[in-house]
């Protein structure tokens, strides 16, 4: 697991301060292509998908800190 690669990628996105959610950006949902090791790319996408599903099912988006989605 190349955790340092994930660390660099998240830090770069958080510092870019485009006003975009970090997870969505890493998961490619904002149109930006952020290079991530395959395992973390898959993880970002599966996490994003699960949070979106839960948000739409339970209407809990107001409870989530904005940076999550």
């Amino acid at each position: 697991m190349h955790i340092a690669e994930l660390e660099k990628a998240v830090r770069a996105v958080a510092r870019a301060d485009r006003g975009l959610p970090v997870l969505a950006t890493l998961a490619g949902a904002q149109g930006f292509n952020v290079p991530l090791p395959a395992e973390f790319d898959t993880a970002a996408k599966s996490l994003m998908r699960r949070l979106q599903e839960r948000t739409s099912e339970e209407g809990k988006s107001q409870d989530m800190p904005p940076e999550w989605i």
Partner: protein
Amino acid sequence: MLHRLRTEVRKVVERYCDEPIHRGEILRALRRGGFAFHPQAACRAGVLTLQVHRAIAGLPSSAAIRAAAAVELLMEAAFIFDHVADQEVVLQHGLSPAEELGLAIAILNCGLAAACEATHWEGRGADGHQSLLHLLRSCISACTGQFLDAYLERRDSATAEEALAMTSLKAGSLGKLAAEFGARMATDDAETIRLFGEFGINLFTYLQLIDDLRDACATRIAQTDLTRRKKTLPLVFFYNAMLQSNNDNEAGNSSTRLEEEFEASGAGVFCTIAAEAFLNRAKSTLADLRGRVREVKCLEEFIEALVLNAEGFLTLS
């Protein structure tokens, strides 16, 4: 299942702890929040052992229940040690750190005694001996993780690799212990046992990372963790981000400001993606086990419940 597990845990303590004062304190400790006898306790480790055994062999035998009680007691001992190490128990329960450690060591040995009984009841002979040795090896790995946790805390800084290795040893080893012991009580197939060991490591590492994130974000604990410079994965990310931005003056910041900086640093997303990678590994291992065991549905449901619970903490924090 949970009721039988708790009953078995109590039986083991009553069987091996003769001195009433000592036995009473152990049973009282096990009623604390998060511990086995607390009404809301999930007993994750013991239940994982039972679910793995069920996936391989169906309805659990008496030996399997005793094995699960053994694992749960080992986990409870680790909890008490962890609380002492985090200085969360001093006077909180009316006991000194030395008394707390005395309870932890007794509970650990109750767990090992129960593990000996379980393998004996299962009639596994030489295989039972091997099962116990593997259980002890995983216990020692978890102790290594506990040691590294304290060792890293003493240092000024740590890398994400070091924090993750410590987490995987500390929590992942307990997951391996729980899943592998359940598997060894039900089968001799080396590959099935190995896969369950991997499953346990990845599942408990996921849970620990989510717990670390919850603790970092919880106001009461954030003050403690941040000021103590704990080297959990999310906090290592945060400290290193602050160092890189030449903003390492958190001692003078308010806890609210620190929480805001923590959120803005991306530490939450970083830790959650890392945790998700371990969860995906656990799910992938479970897929590999399909066809090798009777059923994996019970474990899929177990994971689903754990994830819902873990992410409930995240969204509500």
